[in-house]
């Protein structure tokens, strides 16, 4: 296949808006090829979108669906010859996720939080999401075995457990959510700072984070630790964010990437002592990111309207439920996590919501290097992923931001500095924040770029970047990027002008990290004891079988080249 004459943005290969032809052969980008030609003269061409943080599969997503039959009435589409039926807006069914990502030009998305115990469910759903490639990050931050290894300062055993856990969950990377807080929630409390000890474990969140970061680097995992801070969502929590990032300054990355990726930074950049004097501290956070190179973040942009908050941060969801008097699901995941789900409506007339909206945008605009900030909405916590075009146009257009702010609370100008920010992102920035950077941050060498050997995942948008003024014509931009003209996944046109043409199954990435057998041997008696005493299931039934990943793509990592021994 040949794509002729597009204006290509491929930041990883230093291509910023050059007119060029692209060649595809057997699902990969190549130097020269023949076959079908697509005329993209003058149109915007980018690699397929990569979403590094979204909640798209697993038990909490399904809990959201069960709790919200009202949501599933929105966005229904009947089946047709190609597509199965779609339902839902904030918590769509599996099929709709695949179709909607593909229509928007996205070809890869990662589920951001899965406990090992519930990984089988996650993979069952991921398998049902058509078209896109995917993976799932595995939760380790409140795991008993992790906390015991950290307490005993046994790094090699911790690394062995992380490798074993990733293998059992068929997981892609280490996700940490409110470390220690989820375990404390089992006793009705929360940790209040990174130095607050976790009940019964004699460890602090700081030690858990550092321990897992060291294990992550020891194992040479493709992705860094992926961290949801303590005190997330609370006024004044920016100090916790800075304190936590400082903990990780001295850790050496084992690959060419960050040491920590901060999830949905927007929810952790708040000042004030309570909701009354709630304000943005995005400039402080942005300064930190501008002066340090060990951390990256995704925005977690909040947009007004319906959302469904879902997180492994169960005490946070308890707070949400109290605040909104809305439906609340609270869930305990045995020795691993706790979690919660609460539906939410964000209103532009509410000052707190308006400040949150502004914080996300401020972060993205004040951090100078777009490689450090990913565009996300923490789907469906801040807003459903179908609203990414709204976020992109807000970042690209100062007039649009001004118009939006004019319709909000008059106090907003005093609580944030968004109104004074003149910066407008260009297509190069957007291509980095939605394609190149997420692929690099996740450690996916074949994604997010169009160089030879890359996966032939390409988006062609029906807009001419050389003619369109993105600042003034933001509504045209939003329309064009909401529905890609062509979405090409693995060399196949999957969506054309919003119509899904075919639904190939996507691949699932997981990381198999090798560790010395001796470390695993030291680990197993601990696990055998836990399963015998505490778990509701047997150790032999715990790991996800390969049958649940029919299109697996295994990435090798680890201490040595020897593969990990099969667990008896």
């Amino acid at each position, binding site marked *: 296949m040949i794509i002729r004459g597009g204006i290509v943005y491929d930041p990883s290969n230093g291509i910023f808006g050059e007119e060029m032809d692209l060649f595809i052969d057997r699902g990969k980008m190549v130097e020269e090829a023949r076959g079908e030609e697509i005329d993209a003269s003058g149109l915007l061409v980018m690699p397929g979108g990569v979403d590094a943080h979204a909640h798209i599969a697993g038990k909490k997503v399904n809990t959201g669906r069960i*709790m*919200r*039959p*009202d949501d599933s*009435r929105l966005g229904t589409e009947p089946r047709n010859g190609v597509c199965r039926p779609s339902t839902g807006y904030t918590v769509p069914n599996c099929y709709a996720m695949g179709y909607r990502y593909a229509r928007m030009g996205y070809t890869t998305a990662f589920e951001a939080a899965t406990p090992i115990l519930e990984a089988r469910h996650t993979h069952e759903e991921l398998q049902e999401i058509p078209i896109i490639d995917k993976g799932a990050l595995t939760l380790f931050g409140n795991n008993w075995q992790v906390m015991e290894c950290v307490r005993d300062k046994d790094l090699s055993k911790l690394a062995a457990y992380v490798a074993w856990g990733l293998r059992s969950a068929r997981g892609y990377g280490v996700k940490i959510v409110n470390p220690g807080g989820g375990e404390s929630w089992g006793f009705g409390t929360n940790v209040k700072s990174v130095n607050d000890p976790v009940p019964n474990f004699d460890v602090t969140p700081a030690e858990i984070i550092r321990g897992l970061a060291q294990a992550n680097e020891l194992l040479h995992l493709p992705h860094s630790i992926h961290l949801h801070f303590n005190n997330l969502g609370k006024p004044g929590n920016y100090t916790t964010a800075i304190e936590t990032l400082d903990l990780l300054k001295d850790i050496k990355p084992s690959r060419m990437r960050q040491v920590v990726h901060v999830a949905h930074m927007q929810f952790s950049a708040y000042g004030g002592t309570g909701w009354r004097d709630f304000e943005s501290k995005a400039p402080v956070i942005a300064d930190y990111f501008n002066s340090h190179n060990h951390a990256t973040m995704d925005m977690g942009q909040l947009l007004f309207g319906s959302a469904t908050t879902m997180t492994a941060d169960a005490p946070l969801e308890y707070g949400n439920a109290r605040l909104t008097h*809305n439906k609340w699901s609270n869930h305990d995941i045995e020795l691993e996590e706790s979690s919660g789900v609460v539906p939410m409506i964000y209103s532009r007339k509410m000052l707190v919501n308006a400040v949150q909206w502004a914080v996300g945008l401020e972060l993205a605009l004040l951090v100078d290097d777009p490689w450090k900030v990913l565009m996300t909405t923490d789907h469906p916590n801040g807003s459903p992923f179908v609203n990414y075009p709204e976020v992109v146009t807000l970042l690209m257009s100062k007039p649009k931001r001004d118009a939006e702010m004019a319709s909000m609370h008059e106090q907003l100008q005093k609580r944030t500095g968004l109104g004074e920010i003149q910066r407008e992102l260009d297509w190069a920035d957007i291509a980095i924040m939605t394609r190149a950077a997420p692929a690099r941050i996740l450690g996916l060498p074949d994604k997010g770029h169009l160089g030879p050997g890359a996966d032939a995942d390409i988006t062609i948008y029906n807009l001419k970047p050389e003619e369109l003024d993105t600042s003034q014509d933001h509504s045209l931009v939003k329309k064009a990027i909401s529905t890609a003209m062509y979405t090409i996944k693995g060399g196949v046109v999957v969506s054309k002008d919003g119509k899904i043409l075919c639904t190939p199954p996507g691949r699932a990435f997981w990381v198999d990290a090798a560790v010395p057998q001796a470390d695993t041997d030291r680990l197993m008696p601990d696990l055998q004891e836990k399963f015998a005493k505490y778990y509701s299931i047997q150790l032999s039934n715990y790991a996800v079988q390969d049958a649940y990943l029919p299109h697996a793509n295994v990435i090798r990592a680890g201490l040595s080249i020897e593969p990990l021994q099969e667990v008896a």
Partner: protein
Amino acid sequence: MRSIVIAPRNVFCISVEAENISPDRFAPLKIEEIKKLIVWQGNRQKILSDLFTVDGEDSPSKAEDMAIRLSGDFSNVKRIGEGMTSGAIEVQGSAGMHAGNHMSGGILSIAGNADDWLAREMLGGRVVVMGDAGNYVGAGYRGEKCGMRGGEIEVRGNAGAYLGEHLCGGSIRVGGNAGDFPGAANQGGTIFIGGSTYLPGAEMSKGTINVRGETKVLPSFQKMEIAQIDGTDYQKYLGDLLENGKGELFVGVAVP
């Protein structure tokens, strides 16, 4: 006034979804175009004239000048008058589920009975049922926090369970009895029940429920003074205290 008469061609064993039977949809169309409007029977898509005869004045009109008469048995035809904003629908027999849902204006009158979910999530307008109504009259559909927000519903006969669940506004008047749990989670609407019922106002936070006949009151309601309304004595209660509620419940004092 432009009048259109619709009658079923036969008895429907499989229910029909006919949200297109509405003054708003008919108003700009000629008879031939109305006949081509889509309806579903089970999982089959059909057009209106496959299942119904359509007669009446041909020339398009405004929605407020539309009068649609449904002649015959419509008890297996769902979603009649969905989202209507003005005009009138007169059902001469009974109507199926979800009649008048989301309507914001106009009049829907049903000479027979109405099935479940009558006028659910209604915003305005008026619904009159001469016979009985099913469960969930004026309620919010599954998962919804707000049911009816405005308008009036009058049921001359009896109503089923969960009358006005999640009511956020408007008023419902039932001449006869109501089933269990009327006005559950009421957040600001008004309900009058002429006959008896069971456990009204559970989890209500605002609004008023008036029960003329007998009822059992939940223990989470606070007994207040005797109040007189329209010359009748009522025992007043406040609740539901479980929700810190400020709702008012009036129960008729039986004359010995």
